[in-house]
Each structure stands twice: as structure tokens, then as C-alpha cells.
């Protein structure tokens, strides 16, 4: 009972949980509405009724945190109950109970499929309603557990040796077997802490603004992803009102996001090339993927492999993500030409020309895809540069990044570019190969995913960490491509973002870019001979050493996330993503 008492309900009667549970009942049948209202009141719940699904949705939207659970009938005249169920799940992430006179298995199954946490048959008995609080409680407990789990893991890390830590850390929220077990242990250990912390976990979610996220990423980078822990991050962030639980859950998502990036990278690599057609189609997915990071359940794709590369992968994944999602936005840049992704090259002054070329190549391919995408704001001067660069690259790897870069108002060259690169990364959900991401979508933290709505601008390159290791291991060109693409895309992104990025920390950007470029190049290099890009492909010999000079895992990479980028993450949740198969529910995490 202590747990219940400290469940952290934001309702006025916290201490008497489940009393005071705020229920919204939706039923077009006035008889039942009256009965249910009375029944729920008898359970000491706070009841609000609505005879129309639309009204109910409006109410829910107006008072985002005003309800704990929704009970809805399946058959309603103005809106299908299942639709309402979906909306509530997606937008508000509240538990929903379905009701119906019809107890047919198929209907019940449909309800469950749509996310109903329970399905009641009319006539409904009071005792059935008495227990609905368990759904609310369960949801909260799971959230807390996730946080606690990770916090526990972090603590364990401190106690154990490094090897153990890495093992623990690699447990993405998506995987059940290992994490489940560990979770048990952790929970047992931290039961008290859980109780105490639960009370602190309120219904009100933290809004991870771009600013906040940036601080978070900065802290993570400074500590090092493999050594990071919520407490450390919290201390570094210096945000007084933020709790460790907030950070822990955010960190979890972030890890998933990184993981997803990695997966995508790997995935695209395996595909060996961009599938143009897929790219555009993947766009929505990318966003979702990232968004899905929030939704742990959905992020099953994270695998150990990517976790291993987590640090390194970040960038790459980001690239993919960015690519995909950004294809729309970023591509705009040179959209029309599958020219160089040059910017990437430019950013890394140390890169050999070949490297640059590779970037452009990859980018070029991407570009074609990207074109489909969209709208990239042409404000970025460097975008144009890129196009130009692309043209140049045709023949050789001698890419003059400078040309492209210089034009960029923000950057002073690779550095500035890097900033962009890095930042938009995550949000870009690049999917160079855009191919079967579905298979293995690395979990990306939703935060980093740039919501489509914002497009590139919104992208917050959350610290792209180039997965150099993967690159080096022969990641496919796609990875490189993706990365490059992303880089370019990122650059093409809003000038704002660039500006911000630039301001944010050129250095880090610089480094990140290097990193990204490095990896991109590397992978690209490896794939060069694979005829990755039909047509424009110009094999370039990338000097591996140039890559090595890149800073892998530059922690700063993840740092510069323009605030607005973060915000963008919040959007697009409802974007139906297909291949990713991530429930849109994720958005709840970031939307708060």
C-alpha cells in the first residue's frame, strides 16, 4: 500500500488512491452513462461523462492532465469507439477501457489490438469498475520501473566492474528477456527507492524542450555514454526542478534512439544502397522510429549489437534517421541533384578529397531520393553550395568543401557545418537505404527524432555519434551515404538551426561532423566498389587515415541540439509510420 499511497497521483486525493481517480466515461447511451456515473462515484472516483466521442476528445485535449483513465463504449454514432481509443492512446497515452454489449471474441480482440487495457461487457457490475484503478497504477508502475530499472542499473554499474556495466547498459528497453530479469533484481533492490521515487513521479510529464534536451546531451557527452547515469547527468545539467526519474527515463529513450540509429545504419548497410523509392516512403517511418524510441515497447529492434556500438552509432543512426525523415527536408537542398553531400566533406578539413567525394556520392544518391521529400528551406546558402559542390564532384573526389561551406553563413567551414550535421542528425532519422528498416530499426530516442512537421529545421541533431566502428567494419555505403546525406541535409536545414548550432558550439559541431563524416566516409569507402550508386557513382579512394582522424564518439556531437529541434520531436507523433511499426504512443514521452 505504500506504493499506492506514493503513487504520485496528481489528483487531489493522492493519499487515498485509488480514490479520486479521474475517470472520463464516454457512451452515447444515456441510461448507461447515468448508471456508470453513479457506479464510479460509489467507488469514490471523480467522474466526468460525455455522450459524444468528439466532446470527450476535446475534453481530453483541453485538460491534458485532467484524467487518469477513459472508459468508452465501442458503438457510438459520431465516432467509432476504436478510433477514439486510438486517439486517446496516441495523444494522451491514457489507459482506455472499452465497453460493449457485444462480447464477441473478434470485437474484444479488436479492442485489445487497438490498445484497450480492458474490455467490459454490459451489463457492467460495480465490482468490475472498482478495479479499474489497477490499469492506471500498472501504467505508472511500469513507467517508474523503467526509470528505476535504469537507475538501478546505473547504480549497479558503479558497484560492479566495467564489463558488467556495459552488459547492463546494453539492455534496451525493447528487449524483454534480459532486461526483464534484471529488472526484477533491480526492482527488488530498489523497492524502497521506487516507492519514494514513485511519489515523486507525477502525472505531469517533463517537457523535454530542445534546450533541456541539449543540456541533457551535453551532460551525457561529457560523462560519456557508457559511463553515464541519471544522477550524473542530472548533476551536470543543473536543472533544479528536474528529477532523477525524469532524466532516467529520458536517458532510456535516448539510448533507444541511439540504438535505433545504429540498427538503421546496419540495416541500410546490409541493403547496400539507397533505394530511392524507399527513401521517400521511409520518411514517415524515420520520424516514427525516433519517436518510437519513446515507446519502449515498440523499440524491439534494438539489439545488442547496436548497443555495443551505441556510442559510435549514434551519428550513423542519426544519419539514417535524418535521411529518411529529412529527406524531405534536407534533401531540399540540392534536391535535385544527387550531388555531393559535400558538406560533410567540407566539414572535415582533414578529410581527403576522396572522402569528400564519397560524401557527395552518397549524398548524391540521397539527393535523388530526397528530392521527393520536400521542402527544404532554401535559405541555407550552403545548400546551394552543396548543389554546386555536387556538380563538382561528378568527376572526382576532389571536393572542395570550402566552396560549399564558405557560402554557408553560419559556418566557418567544416566546423560550423559539423554543427549542423551533428545536430540535425538525430532528428533526421536518416535511412539511407531506406529499405527495410523495419527489420532492424535501431531505437532512437524520440527526442532526437525530428518531427516531420518541423522538417529539417526542427531537427535537433542530438549528438550524432558516428558509429565509426560500424563504419570501419565495413558498413555499407549506405551508412556513409546516409550520414553524408544527413549531414548535408542538416545543413540544408533551417538556417536557424544552423545558427543555433553554430552558436551552440562550433567545436562540438566540428567534432561531430568529423565524426560523422568519418564514419560516413568510411562506410562509403567500403561500399564504393559495390557500385553503390548506380550512375553517378564515382569510386573514390578514401584514405582510411583521414577517417581515423575523425573524432569518434565525440561527446559534443550530441550536445548541440537546438531547442526548437527538440520541440519538433513532440510533433509528428501521430504520423502513421508503417514499417517502423512503432506505436505512435511514443510521442507521449516527449510531448509530455
Amino acid at each position, binding site marked *: 500500500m505504500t506504493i499506492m499511497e506514493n503513487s504520485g497521483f496528481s489528483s487531489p486525493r493522492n493519499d487515498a488512491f485509488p480514490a479520486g481517480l479521474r475517470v472520463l466515461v464516454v457512451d452515447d*447511451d444515456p*441510461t448507461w452513462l447515468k448508471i456508470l456515473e453513479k457506479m464510479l462515484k460509489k467507488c469514490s472516483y471523480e467522474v466526468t461523462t460525455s455522450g459524444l466521442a468528439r466532446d470527450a476528445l476535446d475534453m481530453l485535449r483541453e485538460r491534458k492532465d485532467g484524467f487518469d483513465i477513459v472508459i468508452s463504449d465501442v458503438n457510438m454514432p459520431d465516432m467509432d469507439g476504436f478510433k477514439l481509443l486510438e486517439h486517446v492512446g496516441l495523444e494522451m497515452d491514457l489507459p482506455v477501457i472499452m465497453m460493449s*454489449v457485444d462480447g464477441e471474441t473478434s470485437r474484444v480482440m479488436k479492442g485489445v489490438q487497438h490498445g484497450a487495457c480492458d474490455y467490459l461487457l*454490459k*451489463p457492467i457490475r*460495480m465490482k468490475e469498475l472498482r478495479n479499474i484503478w489497477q490499469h492506471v497504477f500498472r501504467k505508472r508502475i511500469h513507467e517508474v520501473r523503467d526509470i528505476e530499472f535504469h537507475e538501478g542499473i546505473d547504480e549497479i554499474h558503479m558497484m560492479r566492474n566495467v564489463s558488467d556495466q556495459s552488459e547492463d547498459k546494453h539492455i534496451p528497453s525493447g528487449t524483454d528477456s534480459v532486461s526483464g530479469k534484471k529488472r526484477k533484481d533491480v526492482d527488488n533492490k530498489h523497492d524502497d527507492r521506487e516507492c519514494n521515487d514513485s511519489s515523486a513521479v507525477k502525472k505531469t510529464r517533463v517537457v523535454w524542450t530542445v534546450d533541456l534536451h541539449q543540456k541533457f546531451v551535453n551532460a551525457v557527452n561529457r560523462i560519456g555514454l557508457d559511463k553515464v547515469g541519471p544522477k550524473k547527468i542530472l548533476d551536470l545539467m543543473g536543472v533544479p526542478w528536474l528529477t532523477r526519474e525524469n532524466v532516467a527515463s529520458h536517458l532510456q529513450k535516448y539510448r533507444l534512439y541511439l540504438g535505433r540509429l545504429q540498427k538503421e545504419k546496419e540495416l541500410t548497410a546490409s541493403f547496400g544502397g539507397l533505394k530511392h523509392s524507399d527513401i521517400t516512403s521511409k520518411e514517415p517511418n524515420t520520424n516514427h522510429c525516433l519517436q518510437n524510441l519513446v515507446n519502449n515497447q515498440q523499440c524491439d529492434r534494438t539489439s545488442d549489437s547496436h548497443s555495443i556500438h551505441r556510442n559510435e552509432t549514434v551519428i550513423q543512426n542519426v544519419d539514417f534517421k535524418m535521411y529518411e525523415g529529412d529527406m524531405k527536408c534536407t534533401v531540399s537542398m540540392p534536391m535535385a541533384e544527387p550531388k555531393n553531400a559535400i558538406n560533410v566533406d567540407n566539414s572535415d578539413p582533414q578529410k581527403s578529397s576522396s572522402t569528400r567525394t564519397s560524401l557527395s556520392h552518397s549524398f548524391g544518391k540521397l539527393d535523388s531520393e530526397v528530392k521527393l521529400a520536400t521542402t527544404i528551406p532554401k535559405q541555407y546558402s550552403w545548400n546551394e553550395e552543396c548543389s554546386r559542390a555536387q556538380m563538382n564532384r561528378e568527376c572526382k573526389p576532389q571536393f572542395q568543401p570550402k566552396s560549399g561551406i564558405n557560402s554557408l553563413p553560419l559556418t566557418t567551414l567544416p566546423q560550423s557545418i559539423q554543427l549542423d550535421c551533428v545536430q540535425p542528425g538525430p532528428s533526421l532519422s536518416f535511412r539511407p537505404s531506406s529499405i527495410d528498416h523495419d527489420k532492424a530499426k535501431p531505437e532512437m530516442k524520440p527526442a532526437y527524432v525530428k518531427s516531420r512537421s518541423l522538417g529539417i529545421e526542427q531537427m535537433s541533431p542530438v549528438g550524432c555519434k558516428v558509429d565509426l566502428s560500424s563504419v570501419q567494419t565495413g558498413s555499407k555505403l549506405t551508412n556513409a551515404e546516409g550520414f553524408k546525406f544527413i549531414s548535408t541535409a542538416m545543413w540544408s536545414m533551417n538556417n536557424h538551426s544552423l545558427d543555433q548550432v553554430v552558436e551552440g558550439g562550433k567545436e562540438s559541431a566540428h567534432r561531430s561532423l568529423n565524426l560523422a563524416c568519418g564514419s560516413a566516409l568510411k562506410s562509403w569507402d567500403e561500399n564504393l566498389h559495390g557500385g553503390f550508386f548506380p550512375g553517378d557513382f564515382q569510386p573514390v579512394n578514401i584514405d582510411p587515415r583521414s577517417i581515423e582522424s575523425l573524432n569518434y564518439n565525440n561527446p559534443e556531437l550530441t550536445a548541440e541540439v537546438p531547442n526548437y529541434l527538440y520541440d519538433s520531436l513532440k510533433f509528428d507523433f501521430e504520423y502513421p509510420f508503417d514499417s517502423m511499426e512503432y506505436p505512435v504512443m511514443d510521442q507521449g514521452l516527449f510531448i509530455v
Partner: protein
Amino acid sequence: MEGSQFQRQAANMRKTLFDQGYLDEQFIQLEELQDDANPNFVEEVVKVFYRDSARMIRNIEVAMAKTPIDFEKLDDVMHQFKGSCSGIGAKKVKGECTQFQDYCKAENAEGCTRTFQSLKQEHAILKTKLENYFQLTRQC
């Protein structure tokens, strides 16, 4: 005493309603919900039911008057109506609803019509009985 007489009468009437299958367990649920905060809760719910069910019956009549009859739609409307009936525990009326739905699935227009008549009758009978019952209980 008057009070106790009415009480006894009401109790008898109530028992009959149950024994004769007019009401089922759900009605008891409603009675259990009645409290000081809502002393006439059961009556209020029944009132709401009858107001709404009248509307539903009209809808069914309209649907049945169409040619050709849309059995699926009819089934849907009846489904809603049945749900409502289950709310107050109107057992006999509910039975008629089920029968009606069976005919709908069999696309038996004649069966539907017959059952519908029967349904309306039961619906009306119950209404009268309950009104009398509530009157009695108010006297107590």
C-alpha cells in the same frame, strides 16, 4: 400502518416482477447504487431509459418501413437498444431484442415485424409496472 402496508405491497410487487421475469439482476444493482445522495436513483435511471428507448423504437420503426429493409442497420440499432435494456435489467424486453436480432441475421422481415410488435408490448407493460412500483415505494 400505512407505511408498512405500502412497503409490503411494494415488496410483493417487486418480487413478482422478478419472478415473472420482467426484471433481472441488473435491477438489483441499480437498487444497490441508490443511496442518500441519490434516493430515487433507480426511478431516475428508468426514466432516462424510457425516454431514450422511445427514440430508439422510433428509429427501428423507420428502418423497418424502408424497402428493402437494411437488416444490418436494423441489427445495429437493435443492438444499441438491447444494450440500453440491459442497463435497467429489462429481461423480457431484452429477450425480444435477441429474438429480433436473430431474425435480422436470417433476414426474415416477417419474423422481425412480429418480434418487434412483441417487443413494443413488453416494453410498454414493463413501463406501467415500474411506474406503479415506484409510486408505491414513494409512499413508503
